[in-house]
């Protein structure tokens, strides 16, 4: 049962091949037996209650297409009555009193929340080693990282502990773990999925999306997750298409751009081979390929690592031990309360980014760092604008290497450098995907697809067509 896709499970439920309770119990048992550490909280009781309700709906014949389908919810989305920690000690005591819009939408679609997926603390990290709840293991090789920050989500789907998982992507946090775990992930256009109740890392970059086995599943879930939300000022009031509608379209004539900057030094040759083979496959399906240039993409790392820390330094000020969350023991005065609650509550990487952001915004440095980075961001965004005048989709690697060993990176900077191919589209607000494209050294490699604003349908269509010709997405880690 666990090997089935969301689309297949939906049919099975409808045809009464199994019930939602059976399905839910099956996944809950798999989670219990798993050693991936993909979940921070498992919500068995709640899941079974939801499953019973779903079964009742199915029996009554008023089930929706996703009714009764279980999922893993990244612990960054607020869930009423359930701990929402975002992987941080400072929110370990936080039982959210409200639901994020995405949580509400998934509930309303009668989906079954299995639990809250592990993640890098407050979405800061690319390996899921920064979680207060310990690292997550890659199902393909348990000595390796699953990627981050949606590492728990990716491992859960790749390890078939859940048919689908939510994720968020600020600088690659959906695409990179999807790539490293051999699954499908889409980061929608900024503003497409509501950020309300999604604990903010960097507000102008964060965007939620699904991690699934297939593009078709991603389309099914996007139909629920996407949409305007009046509670989010940055949400866009624009009709949501049925993302499954055009999956079958031919991609003949699709113009693919390969940015030369994405294939230069630093890219692992094994990864490059897989990516180029995948591009060839698209060519065989009738797409044309041309080289393009994104001259400012090399600046994405310093730009992102100024802007994101600036925003997070301010976003995380609310975690102060006053109204909710962790408070240090016996604070002797207010200063002590602030200093110790925050120092004890945040991990080292979060503290570093808060300090970098605080510095970059402070008097005398604002222009050189924050303002400068926002200008370069504009240049990066203009590069894409120019590129999309001649191509429909940009393809390239997601990550310069396959999944690395747990503990391989000792310092922050070398980890930052690995985000080189994913950051720039967050800066521009564009949608992007990672789809399984092959293997290098027995580890999965993802292909990145970048589209113009609001081109999710085209991306999903291209990915679905590719998945019709290949079977990389249905390969399973040993023992699953």
């Amino acid at each position, binding site marked *: 049962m666990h090997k089935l896709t969301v689309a297949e499970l939906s049919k099975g439920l409808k045809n009464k091949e199994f019930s939602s309770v059976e399905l839910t119990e099956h996944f809950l048992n798999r989670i219990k037996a798993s050693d991936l550490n993909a979940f921070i909280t498992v919500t068995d009781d709640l899941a079974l209650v939801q499953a019973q309700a779903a079964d009742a709906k199915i029996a009554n014949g008023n089930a929706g297409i996703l009714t009764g389908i279980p999922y893993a919810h990244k612990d960054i989305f607020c869930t009423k009555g359930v701990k929402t920690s975002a992987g941080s000690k400072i929110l370990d005591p936080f039982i959210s*009193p409200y639901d994020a819009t995405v949580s509400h939408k998934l509930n309303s679609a009668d989906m079954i929340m299995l639990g809250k997926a592990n993640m890098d603390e407050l979405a800061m990290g690319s390996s899921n080693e920064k979680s207060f709840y310990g690292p997550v293991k890659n199902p393909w090789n348990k000595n390796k990282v699953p990627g981050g920050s949606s590492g728990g989500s990716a491992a859960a789907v790749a390890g078939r502990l859940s048919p689908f998982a939510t994720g968020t992507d600020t600088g690659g946090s959906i695409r990179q773990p999807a790539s490293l775990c051999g699954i499908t992930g889409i980061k929608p256009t900024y503003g497409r999925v509501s950020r309300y109740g999604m604990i903010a890392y960097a507000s102008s*970059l964060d965007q939620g999306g699904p991690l699934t086995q297939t593009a078709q599943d991603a389309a099914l879930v996007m139909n629920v997750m996407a949409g305007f939300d009046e509670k989010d000022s940055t949400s866009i009031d624009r009709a949501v298409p049925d993302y499954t509608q055009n999956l079958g379209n031919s991609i003949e004539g699709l113009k693919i751009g390969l940015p030369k900057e994405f294939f230069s030094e630093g890219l692992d040759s094994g990864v490059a081979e897989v990516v180029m083979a995948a591009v060839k496959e698209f060519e065989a399906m009738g797409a044309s390929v041309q080289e393009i240039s994104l001259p400012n993409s090399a600046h994405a790392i310093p730009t992102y690592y100024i802007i994101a820390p600036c925003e997070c330094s301010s976003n995380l000020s609310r975690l102060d031990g006053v109204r909710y969350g962790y408070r240090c023991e016996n604070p002797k005065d207010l200063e002590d309360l602030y200093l110790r609650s925050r120092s004890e509550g945040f991990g080292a990487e979060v503290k570093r980014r808060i300090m970098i952001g605080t510095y970059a915004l402070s008097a005398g440095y604002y222009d050189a760092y924050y303002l400068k980075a926002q200008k370069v961001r504009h240049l990066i965004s203009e590069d894409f604008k120019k590129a999309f005048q001649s191509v429909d989709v940009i393809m390239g690697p997601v990550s310069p290497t396959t999944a690395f060993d747990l503990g391989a990176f000792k310092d922050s900077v070398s980890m930052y450098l690995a985000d080189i191919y994913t950051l720039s589209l967050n*800066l521009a607000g564009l949608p992007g995907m990672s789809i399984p494209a092959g293997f290098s050294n027995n580890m999965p490699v993802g292909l990145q697809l970048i589209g113009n604003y609001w081109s999710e349908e085209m991306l999903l269509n291209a990915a679905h067509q590719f998945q019709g010709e290949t079977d990389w997405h249905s390969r399973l880690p040993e023992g699953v």
Partner: protein
Amino acid sequence: MSLSEQQVKEIAYLARLSVDDGEVEQTTAELNNILDLMADLAKIDTQGVSPMSHPLNMSQRLREDEVSEIDQSQEFQAIAPQTGKNHFLVPTVIE
């Protein structure tokens, strides 16, 4: 631009984070290592380029002036570290 240990202490305090004397040297080194990554920014020609603080060129949507929220103070107080008489409590602040 490179940070001194004194600056690191000041920044930490602005962010209400404590950096012990034992940690300050390492923290300073780590932060400077990160800042080295940013050195390239200064070299980029951005003359005439406007800053982009938001990915989409949009205007703020305005909501109608209506009271839509109900009193949820019981639920909110229940998750607070310390409360009393329906207030959030902190150690005495001297003004």
